[in-house]
């Protein structure tokens, strides 16, 4: 485990879109100010944003933990909510349990988790029905490709 250069927790309120995206914008500017490469910042911001939208859309409340080491940026989203009964099914593009409100916001088309997977180098999802969901992602500092 390499040394942590930066760490912060951001609480997120569930059920309302009023401030949705605010935390992600902050995470983006924090990473920029730390001098992290623009491609890593972009991927982290997208993951943070989809995670934030997930909490707002489905959970009662949650938080995002941002941590930065010399090797990686980690975004961890933890929520108290209904949980995901079948993670494999939820990962399938197009599958969604979103409400009409979420869909009107331009989300809930069953692409959120696929996006989180696509922009991360590693992804770990654990969930307990009736309790909540924990999504851990890591983006390696070395530019991909």
């Amino acid at each position, binding site marked *: 485990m390499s040394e942590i250069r930066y760490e912060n927790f951001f609480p997120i309120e569930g059920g309302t879109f009023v401030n949705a995206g605010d935390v992600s914008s902050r995470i983006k500017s924090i990473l920029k100010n730390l001098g992290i490469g623009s491609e890593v910042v972009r991927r982290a911001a997208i993951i943070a944003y989809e995670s934030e939208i997930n909490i707002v859309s489905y959970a009662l409340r949650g938080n995002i933990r941002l941590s930065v080491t010399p090797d990686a940026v980690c975004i961890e989203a933890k929520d108290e909510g209904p949980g995901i009964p079948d993670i494999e099914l939820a990962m399938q593009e197009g599958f969604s349990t979103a409400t009409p409100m979420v*869909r*009107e916001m331009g989300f809930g*088309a069953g692409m959120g988790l696929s996006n989180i997977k696509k922009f991360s180098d590693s992804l770990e999802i654990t969930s307990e029905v009736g309790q909540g969901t924990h999504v851990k992602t890591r983006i390696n500092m070395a530019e991909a490709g």
Partner: protein
Amino acid sequence: MKLEEIAGKLNLRVLCCDEGLSREVRGGFVGDLLSDVMANSREGDLWITRQVHPNIVAVAVMKEHSAILLVQGGIPMEDTLSRARKEGVPILGTEINGFEAAGKIYGLMNP
């Protein structure tokens, strides 16, 4: 313009109901919000979308679209295809994105 001609010129994949290729396309509509498409698209439109959910078929039937074009490599869910077959709604696919697909189809229809 016939759906067949658009499909040929843009090299679109026919994912189901190729018997519908002789249909006439009267216009185009780009949209991913079903309520928006319901409210604003027109009969005979070729509907261009990234949604892959089975509900798109019901919308296309209700609005009498000529066909659905799934852009950006969108793969329809299994239920989407089976409903489309039942209703006879052609579904086409392409790797290009919505802007590019709309741009090219617009160009074909407004030479």
